[in-house]
C-alpha cells in the first residue's frame, strides 16, 4: 500500500506552492478582479519557463513528458493560490483534447505553443443555461466551417485556439472541432460572471474555418473521456482552494477575539471548522484515488473521477462559504479575500458541469453490473 505521492512529487508541490506564494499572491488575483489586467500573464509566462503547461505533453511536442501525478500536484497548488490564469482550460482541456484525439499535424502545430504558454486553448461547450445535450447542440460544423454561438466560454477572451463541441453536419453526430480564434469570423464578447478573476466570453462563429479533432461524429465520447480526466485535475484545484479557505478561517478564528476569547474557542466555530476539515479530507482521499485512476488509466476512472469531483466540489463550496461566515461582517467586505474563494469555488463547481451532473455520472457507473 503506497497511496500517496512520491517524495519527488511532493518536492515539486512544495516548489510550486512557494512559487505561487511569491508570484501569485492575492494582490495579483485582485489585479485581475479589478480589471487591471485580463489575466496574470507574468505568472503564466514564468510557469511556462518551468514547464508547467507542458507537464503531460511529450517532449517531442515541447513538453516535459511527465505523468499525471505531477500535473495533479501542480493543480492543487494552482487551486490553492486562486491563480488567475487559464490553466484548466489550456492544460486540462485543450492540450488534453489534442493529445488524445489530435492528428499528427494538429499536435505538431498546437502542442508546442500550448506547452510553451505562447498559445492559450479553451473548450467551448455550453450554449446558455442548462446542461448541454448531445442531440440539442445548435452550433453546427459542416463543410469545414463552424457556425453558432457558445456561452459561457471560460477563458474565452484569452483564447488563441478553441476546441468547440458542435453538431456534425455530415455524420449527424457531434464532433470536436478545432478553431484558430485569430480568424476574423470569430467574435468574442466578454461576459460578466460571479468570478471576474477568470474571464469568460460569448464566442460567436460565422462560417469560421475549422477542422475535426478526432473522428467526425465521435465528439461526445471523446468529450466524456476528456471530462473524466479534467474532473480529477479540477478536483485537485478544488481541494487546494478548500484547504486554503479553511486555513484562512482557522487563522482568523485564532486571531479574532470576542467576549474576551478567541472566537475559535467557541464550539459553533470549532465544529464548523471541524466539518470543513472532514469534508476536505474525504475529498482529498477521493481525489487521490482519482489521481491513481488517471495516472494508471484504470477502468475505474469514470467512477473515481465522478466521486472525486462530487466531493471536491462540495468541500470547496462549503469551506468558501463558511470562511465568510467565520469572518462575520469583515468577511463580507471587498477588502478581505474571503470572496475570492467564494467566487472561485462556484466557478470551479460549475465548469465541467455541476455536482448534479457528476452525481448522475457516478450513479451511472454504480449501475454497471460490475460496480460496487
Amino acid at each position: 500500500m503506497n497511496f500517496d505521492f512520491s517524495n519527488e512529487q511532493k518536492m515539486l508541490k512544495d516548489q510550486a506552492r512557494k512559487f505561487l506564494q511569491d508570484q501569485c499572491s492575492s494582490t495579483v488575483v485582485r489585479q485581475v478582479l479589478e480589471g487591471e489586467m485580463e489575466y496574470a500573464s507574468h505568472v503564466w509566462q514564468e510557469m511556462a519557463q518551468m514547464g508547467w503547461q507542458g507537464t503531460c505533453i511529450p517532449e517531442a511536442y515541447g513538453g516535459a513528458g511527465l505523468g499525471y501525478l505531477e500535473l495533479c500536484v501542480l493543480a492543487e497548488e494552482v487551486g490553492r493560490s486562486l491563480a488567475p490564469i487559464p490553466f484548466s482550460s489550456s492544460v486540462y482541456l485543450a492540450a488534453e483534447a489534442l493529445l488524445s484525439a489530435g492528428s499528427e499535424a494538429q499536435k505538431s502545430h498546437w502542442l508546442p505553443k500550448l506547452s510553451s504558454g505562447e498559445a492559450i486553448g479553451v473548450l467551448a461547450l455550453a450554449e446558455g443555461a442548462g446542461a448541454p445535450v448531445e442531440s440539442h447542440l445548435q452550433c453546427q460544423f459542416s463543410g469545414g466551417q463552424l457556425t453558432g454561438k457558445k456561452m459561457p466560454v471560460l477563458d474565452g477572451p484569452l483564447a488563441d485556439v478553441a476546441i468547440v463541441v458542435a453538431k456534425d453536419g455530415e455524420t449527424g453526430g457531434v464532433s470536436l472541432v478545432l478553431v484558430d480564434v485569430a480568424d476574423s469570423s470569430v467574435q468574442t464578447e466578454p461576459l460578466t460572471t460571479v468570478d471576474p478573476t477568470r474571464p469568460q466570453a460569448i464566442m460567436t462563429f460565422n462560417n469560421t474555418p475549422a477542422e475535426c479533432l478526432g473522428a467526425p461524429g465521435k465528439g461526445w465520447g471523446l468529450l466524456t473521456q476528456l471530462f473524466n480526466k479534467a474532473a480529477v485535475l479540477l478536483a485537485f484545484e478544488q481541494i487546494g482552494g478548500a484547504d486554503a479557505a479553511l486555513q484562512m478561517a482557522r487563522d482568523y478564528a485564532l486571531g479574532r477575539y470576542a467576549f474576551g476569547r478567541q472566537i475559535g474557542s467557541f464550539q459553533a466555530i470549532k465544529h464548523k471548522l471541524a466539518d470543513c476539515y472532514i469534508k476536505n479530507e474525504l475529498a482529498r482521499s477521493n481525489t487521490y484515488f482519482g489521481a491513481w485512476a488517471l495516472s494508471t488509466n484504470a477502468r475505474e476512472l469514470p467512477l473515481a473521477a465522478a466521486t472525486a469531483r462530487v466531493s471536491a466540489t462540495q468541500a470547496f463550496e462549503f469551506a468558501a462559504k463558511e470562511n465568510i461566515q467565520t469572518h462575520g461582517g469583515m468577511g463580507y467586505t471587498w477588502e478581505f479575500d474571503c470572496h475570492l474563494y467564494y467566487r472561485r469555488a462556484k466557478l470551479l463547481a460549475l465548469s465541467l458541469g455541476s455536482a448534479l451532473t457528476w452525481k448522475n455520472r457516478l450513479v451511472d457507473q454504480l449501475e454497471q453490473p460490475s460496480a460496487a
Partner: protein
Amino acid sequence: MDFNDTPQEAEFRAEVKAWLKANVPDQNQEVASAYSSRQNQAEALAKAKQWQAKKAAAGYAAITWPTELGGLGGTPMQNVIYADEESKYVVPRGFFDIGLGMCIPTLIKHGTDAHRQRYVKPALYGEEVWCQLFSEPVAGSDLAGIRTRAEKDGDDWILNGQKIWTSGAHHADYGIIVTRSDPAVPKHQGLTFFFLDMKSPGVEVKPIKQISGGRNFNEVFFTDVRVPDSQRLGGVGEGWKVSLTTLMNERLSAGRTLDADMVEFIAMIKTFTMEDGSPAIKNADVRGKLADWYAQGQGLKYTRFRTMTALSKGQTPGPEASIGKCVSASRSQDYAAFAMELMEMGGVVTDPDHSPQQGFFPESWILSPAMRIAGGTDEILRNIIAERVLGLPGDVRVDKDMPFNELPTGA
C-alpha cells in the same frame, strides 16, 4: 381561527387605504428604481423627505407613538396594517427607519424634555436624518467590546475611534453613538452613550465596498470630535443600558419573512428543462428540494402570522422573531446555489440578459452570506433562541469582571 381583521382593524385599514390612494405620488417606475440606487440618492432622499412629511402630518409616520410626540397612539397591529398597505405602492423607503425605529426612541427614553422638543419632530417629518453608530471593526457580535474612546474635556467629550456598518451615515444629520469612556473597568461598565451632529469637524464617512459590489454601509472615523456633555444620553458609564433600549427596538422591527413564497425559484423550476429534456419540475431531486424549501418558507410566513395574531391581541412578540433570519438566510443561499447548479456552466453568468430570471439567483447567491451575518449571525441568533426561549445557560463569560483594558485581544 381566521385571517380576517377585527372590526377595528378593518376600519383602520380602510382609512389607510383611502389615505394612501389619495396621497401616494406618481408610480413612475424610473423614480421607483431611483429610490434604491446610490447614484441617485440625493434625488431619492429629497423625494423620501417629501413623502415622510406627508405621512407624519397624517400621523402614519409613527403610528405607535403617543400623540404628544406626533404619533397616532396606535397599536403595533395598526403599524403592521399600515406597512402592509403601504407596501402595495412604490414609495421611497428606508431613509428614516433607523432614525425613527431606533435612534429617536432611544432619545425619547433617555433624553431630556429639551431634546424631545428639538429633535423628535424634525426626524418624524423627515427633515433630519439619523444614523446609528454601534459596531466597530473589532466589535461585531460582541458589541460591548467597542473601543471608540470618549474623554471628558471641560463641558465636552472628545471622541476618537472608528465605527463600521453604519447605514446612511453619508446623508445623516445626526447619529447616536456608544463609546468607551472608561477602559479600566469591566467592559459593560465603561460605556457612555451620546448623540452627535454628523457634520461635526473630525467626522469622516467612507463607504465600504461589499463583496456584492454594493456600498450600502459606511465606515465612520472620529478624530478629536467634540460632543457637548449635554448630548449625553444616560449617565456616564451607563451606555450599555442605553444601548439595550436601542437594540430592543431593533429586534421589534426585525423578523421580516424573506421570500416565503419563492416566486422566482418556482417560476424557474416550472420553465426549466433538465439534461434529459424533461421539465425540471418533474425531476425527483428538484421536487424534493423544492418541497423542503417551500415548507420552510411557509413555516416562516405562518410563524409571522402567529406573531401578528399575538400583536393583534396586544401581546409582545418574544425573541422567536430570531427564527426568521436564521432559517431564511441559509435557505436562500442554498436554493440560489441549487438554481445555479441546474443552470450548469451557465450558472456563473451574472449578466441579466443571459441568466434565467434576469440573474436573480447569482445575485441572491452573492447577497446571501451577508444575510447570515447582518443583524446577528446565525450563531448569535441560535444562542439567543437557546438562552431566551429555551432557557439554557449563557456561554461561560471570561470577560464579565475583568477590566476592559486587560482583556486579551490578540493584538
